[in-house]
C-alpha cells in the first residue's frame, strides 16, 4: 500500500493493551477491585505482601481470558504458567509481579475490522501474538507529598489481561481503528469496563519506520495512551520524529517514551541500556493453570453473541446490507436497540436507516448513550409503522421523533403505551397525512389553476416543471399530503 507511505517511509505499529478485567475481587486475593476508594482501604494482607501470604488464582479472571480467546479465535492453552517478574519499586509490594511469560493462556487470534482509507471502506486484520494474565501494581502518588512519595496499594493485584499484537498496523489511523475494535470487543463481551480515563484500558504502541521492503526498524514504545485522540497524535508525532532522526543521519535507539498531551510530543523515559533483567522464573506458589476443554466449552456456551457473528446474522435474518450490519453492531446496546425496533415494526431496513441516521446523529451531538436513549425501541417501531402505513410522511416522522426525544418519557416496560404516545403526538401536532383523495384533489386543482405557466411547460415536455407544482401542493396541505399520492394524482390530471 504505497499510498500509506509517509515521506517515503513505511510505518510499522504493534500494540500492547492492558485491559483491566471486570472481576469483583483481585486476581490473587479477595480484596475488592472497585475504583476510587480511599488509599489503601482495598488492600488485604496478600496485596500488601505481608510475610507468609500466598496467591490464590481468581477463576473469574481466567474465565474472562478464555472469553477473549474465544472472541478472537485464539488458542486457549490447556496449561499455562505464571511467572515472577522481579524488580524493586515501592508500589510493587512483593518485589515481583506475577505475570505469564513463556506460556501465556491465550495464544494467537485475530482482530478484524473495517476502516475508511481514502474513499474506500477497507477490511483489515491484525494478528495477535498472545494475551496473558497478570496483576497490576499499586500507584505512587508524587503530587500530594512534599519530598516524599505516597503509596496507594488499592490497585495492587487488580487483574489485567495484556493483549499483544504482531506489528501489523501501517498507520496511526489503522492503529486507532484496531484499538477501537479491541475496545468494542472487550466491552461487548463484558470482560472489561473499557473506562480509559480510569485506566481500565491502557494502550502501549510500538512504533518504527522503514523504507518499503527493508527489515523492521528499531522501535520505540509509547506508553499509557489513555485516549484514542492522544493515541493518533502520539503516533503521528513519533513517526515524524523518527523519520527526521533518520533523515538527519541518526540511528533510532530502542526506548520507552511517554506522550505529553500538552506539548503533543513524545519523550524518552528510558533506553534499552537501562532495561532491567527481570529474572523471570515460574512462580512456585502457583501450579500451572490448567484449562480443560469442558471449561472452555462451558464458557463458550455462556458467552453473548459476538459482534461479527451478530452482523452476519443481521445480513441473513433481516436482509440488511453488510455495511448496515457492521455499523449496527458497533455496540451491544445499539445492536439490541436495532433488533428490538426491527422486530416490533417488521421493517428492518427502515429501522436501520433511522438508527444509523437520526438516532446516531442525535447521540453523537449529545451526551446521551444508547443505554439511556429517551426514545424507546417500541416508540421508534411505532413511528416507522406510521410511516409505513402512510399515516405520516418522513418529514412529519422527524417532527414526532424530535418531540419524543426532547420530551423523553419512553416507557421501556410498556410497548403499548409507547405506541399510543406516538399516535398522540401525531394527533396533537396534526401531522396525519391527507389520504382522502377528494380533499387532496381540491388542493391540486387550486394549485394547477394558480400556476398555468408550469402546467404549460410540463405539457411541452419539461418534466422538471412538475416540481414547481408539487411544492405548493405540499405547502397548501401543510405537509400532510402523501407525496406519492400527489404525484399520482398530478400525472393523472395533467395526462
Amino acid at each position, binding site marked *: 500500500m504505497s499510498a500509506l507511505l509517509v515521506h517515503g517511509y513505511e510505518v510499522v505499529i504493534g500494540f500492547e493493551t492492558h485491559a483491566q478485567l471486570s472481576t469483583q475481587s483481585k486476581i490473587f486475593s479477595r480484596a475488592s477491585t472497585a475504583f476510587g476508594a480511599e488509599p489503601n482501604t482495598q488492600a488485604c494482607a496478600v496485596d500488601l505482601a505481608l510475610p507468609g501470604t*500466598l496467591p490464590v488464582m481468581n477463576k473469574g479472571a481466567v474465565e474472562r481470558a478464555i472469553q477473549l480467546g474465544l472472541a478472537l479465535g485464539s488458542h486457549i492453552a490447556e496449561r499455562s504458567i505464571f511467572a515472577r517478574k522481579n524488580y524493586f519499586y515501592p508500589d510493587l509490594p512483593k518485589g*515481583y509481579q506475577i505475570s505469564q511469560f513463556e506460556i501465556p493462556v491465550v495464544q494467537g487470534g485475530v482482530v478484524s475490522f473495517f476502516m475508511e482509507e481514502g474513499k474506500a471502506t477497507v477490511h483489515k486484520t491484525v494478528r495477535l501474538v498472545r494475551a496473558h494474565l497478570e496483576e497490576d501494581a499499586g500507584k505512587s502518588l508524587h503530587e500530594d507529598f512534599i519530598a516524599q512519595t505516597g503509596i496507594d496499594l488499592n490497585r495492587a493485584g487488580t487483574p489485567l489481561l495484556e493483549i499483544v499484537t504482531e506489528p501489523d498496523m501501517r498507520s496511526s489511523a489503522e492503529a486507532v481503528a484496531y484499538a477501537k475494535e479491541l475496545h468494542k470487543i472487550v466491552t461487548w463481551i463484558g470482560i472489561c469496563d473499557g473506562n480509559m480515563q480510569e485506566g481500565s484500558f491502557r494502550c502501549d504502541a510500538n512504533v518504527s519506520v522503514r523504507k518499503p521492503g527493508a527489515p523492521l526498524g528499531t522501535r520505540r514504545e509509547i506508553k499509557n495512551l489513555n485516549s484514542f485522540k492522544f493515541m493518533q497524535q502520539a503516533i503521528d508525532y513519533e513517526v515524524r520524529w523518527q523519520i527526521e532522526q533518520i533523515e538527519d543521519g541518526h540511528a533510532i535507539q530502542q526506548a520507552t517514551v511517554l506522550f505529553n498531551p500538552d506539548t503533543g510530543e513524545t519523550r524518552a523515559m528510558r533506553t534499552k541500556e537501562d532495561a532491567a533483567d527481570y529474572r*523471570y522464573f515460574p512462580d512456585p506458589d502457583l501450579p500451572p493453570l490448567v484449562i480443560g476443554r469442558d471449561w472452555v466449552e462451558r464458557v463458550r456456551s455462556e458467552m453473548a453473541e459476538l459482534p461479527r457473528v451478530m452482523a452476519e446474522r443481521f445480513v441473513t435474518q433481516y436482509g440488511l446490507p453488510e455495511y448496515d450490519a457492521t455499523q449496527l453492531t458497533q455496540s451491544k446496546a445499539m445492536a439490541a436497540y436495532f433488533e428490538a425496533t426491527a422486530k416490533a415494526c417488521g421493517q428492518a431496513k427502515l429501522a436501520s436507516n433511522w438508527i444509523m441516521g437520526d438516532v446516531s446523529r442525535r447521540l453523537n451531538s449529545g451526551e446521551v448513550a444508547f443505554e439511556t436513549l429517551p426514545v424507546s425501541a417500541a416508540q421508534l417501531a411505532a413511528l416507522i409503522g406510521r410511516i409505513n402505513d402512510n399515516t405520516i410522511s418522513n418529514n412529519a416522522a422527524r417532527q414526532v421523533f424530535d418531540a419524543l426525544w426532547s420530551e423523553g418519557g419512553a416507557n421501556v416496560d410498556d410497548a403499548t403505551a409507547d405506541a399510543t404516545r406516538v399516535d398522540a403526538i401525531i394527533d396533537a401536532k396534526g401531522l396525519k397525512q391527507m389520504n382522502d383523495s377528494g380533499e387532496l384533489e381540491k388542493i391540486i386543482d387550486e394549485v394547477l389553476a394558480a400556476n398555468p405557466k408550469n402546467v404549460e411547460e410540463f405539457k411541452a415536455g419539461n418534466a422538471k416543471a412538475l416540481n414547481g407544482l408539487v411544492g405548493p401542493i405540499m405547502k397548501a396541505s401543510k405537509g400532510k399530503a402523501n407525496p406519492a399520492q400527489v404525484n399520482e394524482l398530478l400525472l393523472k390530471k395533467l395526462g
Partner: protein
Amino acid sequence: MSDLHTLGVAQLSALLQNKDIGAVELATRMLARLGGNPHNAFLSVDSEVTLAQAKAADARIATGDTSPLLGVPIAHKDIFVTADFPTTAGSRILEGYRSPFNATVVQRMGEAGMVTLGKLSCDEFAMGSANENVAVPSAKPQAVTNPWDVSRIPGGSSGGSAAAVAACLTPAATGTDTGGSIRQPAAFCGITGIKPTYGRASRYGMVAFASSLDQAGPMARNAEDCALLLSAMCSPDLDRDSTSLDVKAEDFSRDLNKPLKGLRVGVPHEFFADGLASDVRGPINTALENLKSQGATLVSIALPRTSLSIPVYYIIAPAEASSNLSRFDGVKFGHRAKDFTDLADMYEKTRTEGFGDEVKRRIMIGSYVLSHGYYDAYYLQAQKIRRMIADDFQEAFKQCDVIAGPVAPTVAWKLGDKSDDPLANYLADIFTLPASLAGLPGMSIPVGFGEGHMPVGMQLIGNYLQEAKLLNVAHQFQLATEFHLKTPGGAA
C-alpha cells in the same frame, strides 16, 4: 509429678483428660523452666498469652471436650507468623514485626486446644544447618546450643525447636523443613521429627524461604506424639495456599501398631559411602538390624543422583529465596534504614543492615542463577535434574515400602566449626536434600549415640502420602528401643 516436663504429648494428654493436672498449672510449670532462656532456644515468650490459652483449654476440658491435644503445650518456630507473639524469622529485618494473622499451622494447633509457650529460634529465614545464623535480638543475637553438649550446635534451621524438645522445655514444637531443617536438628538433638509430603501442611503464614520446598512438620519426643500432632496439622487449605494438597485430613496414628513383618526397607548404598562417619554408621546399621529382627527385609536400592542433590538444591532454593525476600524492602513493614539519600540508597542500606551474611549469600546466588544468560544453564538444568531425582525415588519404591539411612554424615559439630565455611555446611545436607527435592515425606528417629555421646538419627523416607507408614515403622522401632527416652543431663 515433679517430672511433668519430661513427659510427651500423649502422656500429658492423658493426665489433662483425667484432670490429674490442669492446663494452666501445666503451662505455669513449663513457663517456669524458660527463665534464663536455656540453650537460647526461645526468641519470645509472653506468659499472659500462654496462660490465657491454657485457661481456655481448661474450660474446654471442663465441658467434656476430649480432643487429644487439648491443653498440651507447644512452641512454634519463629518462621510461622503469629498474631499473639512477634515474628522475626530470626532476622533483623523483621525485628519488632507483629503479624495481623496466624499461620494456618498455628491456627490449626490452636483450634486443637494446644497452648503456645512462645516462639523458637531458627536460622535467619530458615537458612542454615547449625542455628548459628540467628540475628535477633539484634542487641545480642545468640546461637542455639545443643542440650547434649552446649559446646555444639543443635542443627538447623529448626535448631530452637529441636533444642527445646530435647531440653524438655516443651513436649512439642513446630518446625519447617526446606532441605532437612526438621530432620537434621531432630537427629542432632536426639528427638523425633517428621516432614510430611510437600503440600500436606499449609504454607500460609510460613515466612517463605524456598516455596517449592518449604514444608511444616512436628518435632516431639516420639513417633506416637508426632502422629497426634501431624493429624491436627495437616488438612487442605485450598483458599489460602495454591500448593496445598486436596487430600482429606488423616488419623496418622491409625497404623502405629502394625507389625513390621513383610515390610521391605530400601537401603540406598549412596547413603553409606565413604563420607559417612563410622560413629554414625554403627548405630544406623544396628537400627536396620533391629527392623530386620522384627520381620522386615532389607533391600539394597540405588539413588544414583544423591550427590547431585546438593548443587540442584543450592540453585533452586536460593533462586526462589532471592525472589521471596524481595518484599523485605523497608517500604511497608520491618526494618528501614535511618538515613538515606534516595530510593535506591534506602533499599540498599535497609537490606544491607537487615540481612545476615548467609541470607545475602543466597540472595546473590539466587539472583545470579536467574539472570539473563544463566537461567538455562543453572535454574532450568537444576529443575530437570530435580525431576530425575524424583523419578529415581519412584524406581526405588518399586522394590521397597520405605527407605532408611542416615540423616547426616556426622553427629552435631562444635559451635563455630563450620561457620566460616558455607560449603562444608551445604555438603552436610546431602542425605536430607533428595527427599526434599522430590517432595517426599521423611522423618528422623534417634537410634543411638556417636562421638562425644552425641545422638545419631536415622532417616526414614516414604512415598507420597505414606506418612502413616513412616510413623508405623518409627513407633515399632521405639517400642523395641529406648533411645527416644534418653534425655540430656540437666534436662530432667
